[in-house]
């Protein structure tokens, strides 16, 4: 049987009698205690830039996010409000979770071949890899809505249709409030 020999650090005398090390540890924790209490007090009397804790009190206080964070998807629009998407199926093909479902139709504009008849993403399956955004040749899909509180009471609630993807601002707070998504 294989044996693993763990190399242990040899402790010197002061470390072995334990007490000095205990005091060192307690000095660190109490330093944090007093420093944070002082910061809390100073914050309470008006020094708002001092924080005694690293906590973000989530629903009320959002943690600042980088612009590059991959958040909920949106479909970009042309000037007339129709989707930029040309239904090339690149994103549907590259998606590792296979959660994009596109049905194509002919575009009335003779310069453009196709457009999506429906464009659904099942966010319950999405792994937020961002491949769809990178694959898109038309810059038609983006993940920059900064919406992260995506939750629903049912699997259907995580299923997003084209209208919701085109207008994330309209449906931004819909998910948390509605138990059942209107179909």
């Amino acid at each position, binding site marked *: 049987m294989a044996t693993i020999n763990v190399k242990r650090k040899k402790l010197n005398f002061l470390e072995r009698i334990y007490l000095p090390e*205990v005091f060192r*540890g307690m000095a660190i*924790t109490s330093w*944090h205690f007093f420093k*944070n209490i002082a910061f*809390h007090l100073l914050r309470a009397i008006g020094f708002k830039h001092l924080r005694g*804790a*690293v906590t973000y009190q989530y629903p009320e206080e959002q943690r600042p996010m980088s612009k590059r964070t991959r958040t909920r998807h949106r479909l970009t629009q042309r000037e007339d409000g129709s989707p930029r998407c040309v239904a090339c199926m690149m994103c549907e093909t590259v998606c590792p979770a296979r959660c994009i479902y596109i049905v194509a139709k002919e575009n009335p504009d003779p310069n453009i071949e196709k457009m999506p008849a429906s464009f659904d993403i099942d966010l319950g399956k999405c792994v937020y890899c961002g491949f769809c955004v990178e694959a898109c040749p038309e810059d038609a899909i983006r993940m920059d809505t900064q919406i992260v509180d995506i939750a629903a009471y049912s699997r259907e609630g995580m299923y997003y249709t084209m209208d919701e993807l085109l207008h994330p601002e309209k449906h931004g707070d819909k998910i948390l409030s509605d138990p059942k998504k209107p179909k």
Partner: protein
Amino acid sequence: MTLSPELISGIGQIVAVCAFFLGCLLLSGVLTWVERKQSAVMQDRIGANRAKIFGLRMFGLFHIIADAVKMLAKENFIPKNADKLLYQLAPIVSLFFALIAFSAIPFGDTLVLGDIRIPLQGLNLNIGLLYIFAMLSLGVYGVILGGFSSQSNYSFLGGLRAISQLISYEITIGASIVGLVMVYGTLNINELVYVQGEYLWGWVPKWGIVVQPAAFFIFLTAAIAENKRIPFDLPEGESEIVGYFLEYSGMRFGLFFLTDFLELILIACLLATLFFGGWQVPGLFADGFHWFNGAVLHLPALLITLIRVLAMITKILFFCWFLMVIRWTLPRFRYDQLMHLGWTILFPLSIANILITGIVLLFIK
């Protein structure tokens, strides 16, 4: 009809002692909040603050009430094979012995107002010290009963761990105190505090920590082990090695929980009384403050008593805080390390302390 001074003194004592008990019980409730908040502040967090009443949060103080309501509203489960009587008795035994130990703690000097003499202590026994340690030891029975009567293997193992730990460290606690008793020559806690009001070389208060520093550290360590808190929380180990109260739920578990905090306060009281002069304030005598140059600031008796009670409360609160810092700083011992520390380090050290104290006393006398 006139009330005799004895009667007034008696009533005064009852009121004072009731206030002290009530204060300790309240403090044990508040300590659940302190534990959460202090650990949070030590770890750069905010801590539990979501319980609110009418939009008021009060820094999470309502969590105490929320906890109590939760405990009371939960199902009080009794395992099918458990010994019903002993199972229900165990938490009560724990709590009872933790509570009555408080009665021997003096929380202030005797208040003298003319004929009225109100001792600020529940029970002035001349073996008060032994009494407290006896009650602490009896509290172990709650743990033993809890572990054995629930007829669960995990509780049983937790109970076994608890017993061997508590009994090992009880010996050390007893031995660490002997040095103190030898120096002060009394087992009466009240007298113990009086003697600590004396001064070495005229200015160093003759507190336990000054005359018996080694005993302080030994007692502190053993007392934390008796209290079953981290780093000695092997009997409980809530998060992974479930302990003797595994089968308990609802308020019965709550009682065990409360007992833990009461014992914490008791240990804080003992540390303050035995090693930090109890209600003594350096420089404060029965007639007022004595400065170094011999000047005396006279104060009324009531004010002096008040200052002394406040000093005692401050010391208790300080040690509660101190014990919390230890609890949130140190990692848990392994069981063999625990036994090693108890039997081969602390116990011989406490014996050596007794020996050295004896020799030194022999040469001084």
